[in-house]
């Protein structure tokens, strides 16, 4: 391993995850922390923690200059951005190169090309990956109406600089289109600094299926199978699993092949995810976007393949070729991940903060917990509300569901409100049991959740 010391430009559970991956590879870690995370578990586990700024992310975790300065000043030779924050910033990747740091991720060009969703659609089409009927950039209501006539209704207006479920508006009536266009552009400009919009067909009954790929700088690309992430609340994933259940073999194979084709065509390097929408009514699948970083839900893939994705990122970044080929990837069993967040389901999922007084995770083999929480941990108000990812493995999906529910019910957390009970409800839903869930299942059933019943 040619990397000697890695700056981790992230926080929370993924910072802990990356520390573990580095330590196993003999790489030293420096964790960049905001003032709010000085005493975090990641800070304790890392070889060193440096405080890069105040709690608010724009002055700490989102500041390229501070992150790169911290890496250089502490003698790091590489930087791992985790997910979120600056993980898909082409600017950070470029700044790393300029300062002699290895960016643990794809090239700035990959980040730029896939960060611009219109560009990403174009690359997918060029690679022969099916994309949704839609448009290039849409500038005027007239253009939008013309696209709508071709695409049909409903359609979805998306921000080209958005992604990950942010900056989207569904339009059911063409008459709404002009006003949606105006507000969407304004919101995109405010949120992403770029008002560029495009239009795609909206799939009513959709599954979200994504394929994990891994490429090295020598042009080798393998896929590590797919994940189903259909259980989403407001476009945010809540429960993920691998493999995707009840997927016809030909669809599964076609998705794998499409993802590899796209990654190969652009010479993709590092871990990446090609996201697809699967139309339940027609069985067709279409490219949505490509995520050019480690995903929150990567543990389910690790559990069913046995491959450590974060370590693979580090190896590829160090210039190593992939040590295995497609035929060496053995898929076994089923894994389910539940995202436990500090939110109060009974109060419309209001984010909660405060001190965790009781933290008693379920134990046992085949229950994996990725977390930065400990008894006494103070959940800060400044960041997202993810407390832990509870991932279970079992030989079959039914056993994995049972194991997940048992683990959730044994999880003792007090001090902050959490979604543990809600997750138990979700994983216990018949739509999940029979694998008929769609991206609107949570919205459909959420009213049936009685938080008082939850343990």
């Amino acid at each position, binding site marked *: 391993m040619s990397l000697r010391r890695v700056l981790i430009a992230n926080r929370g559970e993924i910072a802990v995850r990356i520390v573990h991956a580095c330590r196993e590879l003999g790489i030293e870690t420096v964790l960049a922390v*905001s*003032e709010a995370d000085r005493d975090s578990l990641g800070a304790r586990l890392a070889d*060193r923690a*440096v*405080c*890069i*700024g*105040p709690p608010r992310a724009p*002055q*700490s975790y989102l*500041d*390229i*200059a*501070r992150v*790169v*300065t*911290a890496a*250089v*000043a*502490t*003698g790091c030779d590489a930087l791992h951005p985790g997910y979120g924050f600056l993980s898909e910033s082409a600017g950070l990747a470029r*700044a790393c190169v300029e300062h002699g740091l290895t960016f643990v991720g794809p090239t700035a060009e990959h980040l730029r090309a896939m960060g611009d969703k219109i560009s990403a659609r174009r690359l997918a089409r060029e690679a022969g990956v099916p994309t949704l009927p839609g448009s290039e950039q849409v500038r005027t209501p007239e253009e939008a109406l013309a696209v709508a006539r071709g695409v049909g209704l409903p359609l979805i207006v998306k921000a080209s600089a958005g992604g990950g479920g942010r900056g989207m508006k569904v339009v059911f009536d063409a008459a709404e289109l002009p006003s949606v266009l105006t507000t969407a552009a304004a919101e995109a400009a405010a949120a992403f600094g770029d008002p560029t919009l495009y239009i795609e067909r909206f799939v009513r009954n959709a599954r979200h299926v994504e394929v994990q790929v891994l490429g090295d700088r020598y042009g080798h690309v393998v896929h590590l199978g797919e994940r189903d992430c259909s259980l989403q609340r407001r476009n945010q994933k809540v429960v993920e699993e691998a493999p995707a259940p009840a997927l016809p073999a030909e669809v599964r194979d076609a998705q794998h092949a499409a993802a590899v084709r796209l990654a190969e065509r652009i010479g993709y390097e590092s871990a990446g995810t090609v996201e697809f929408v699967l139309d339940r009514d027609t069985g067709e699948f279409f490219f949505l976007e490509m995520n050019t970083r480690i995903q929150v839900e990567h543990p389910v893939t690790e559990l069913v393949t046995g491959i450590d994705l974060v370590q693979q990122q580090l190896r590829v970044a160090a210039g190593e070729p992939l040590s295995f080929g497609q035929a060496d990837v053995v898929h076994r069993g089923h894994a389910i991940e539940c995202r436990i967040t500090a939110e109060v389901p009974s109060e419309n999922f209001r984010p909660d903060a405060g001190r965790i007084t009781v933290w008693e995770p379920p134990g046992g083999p085949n229950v994996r917990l990725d977390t930065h929480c400990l008894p*006494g941990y103070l959940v800060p108000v400044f960041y997202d509300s993810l407390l832990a990812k509870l991932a279970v493995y079992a030989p079959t999906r039914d056993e994995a569901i049972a194991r997940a529910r048992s683990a959730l019910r044994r999880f003792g957390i007090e001090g902050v409100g959490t979604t543990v009970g809600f997750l138990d409800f979700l994983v216990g839903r018949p739509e999940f049991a029979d694998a008929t869930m769609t991206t609107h299942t949570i919205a459909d059933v959420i009213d049936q959740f009685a938080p008082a019943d939850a343990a």
Partner: protein
Amino acid sequence: MSEPTRGLTDDDVDQVARLVESLDRSGFDFLQVELGDLRITIGTGSPPAPDVATPPPPPPVVAPVVAPAAVPAPVPQTVAPPPPPSVNAGGVEITAPTMGIFYARPEPGKPPFVAIGDVVEETTTVALVEVMKTFHSVAAGVRGTVVEVCVSDTDFVEFGAVLMRVDPA
């Protein structure tokens, strides 16, 4: 705070148990609390001798971690608002308004902005901190005499690190 004879209430025990847990999570060896006729001692190893008039042990201080860094030419560009001064044992602390490289001088070869014994006003620039070619000037934020410069020129400083101490006028 307590009547002549009383036992330990639930609250008392809860409080002591919390102290035990708090100390246990910390890196310290012992804790003593005295309040009126209440006295609590928790610790590892042999307990401290029950001195009558022992001053409390000095609080452990986490020193700012400092590391060498590359030295680009300092070119002041922006001015950061002075951080609120905080009083400490050694005087008022001037802390780093941002993480970055500490510069004691406006340019290499020039004399430092301030030295020990210098008198500073609230607005006196005492140092620069650089983050990737962006320079933040550090104002004293307090009137008084510089009694300590805690960081060496071109050291890397974390956000909030103590740069200097000033004996307020």
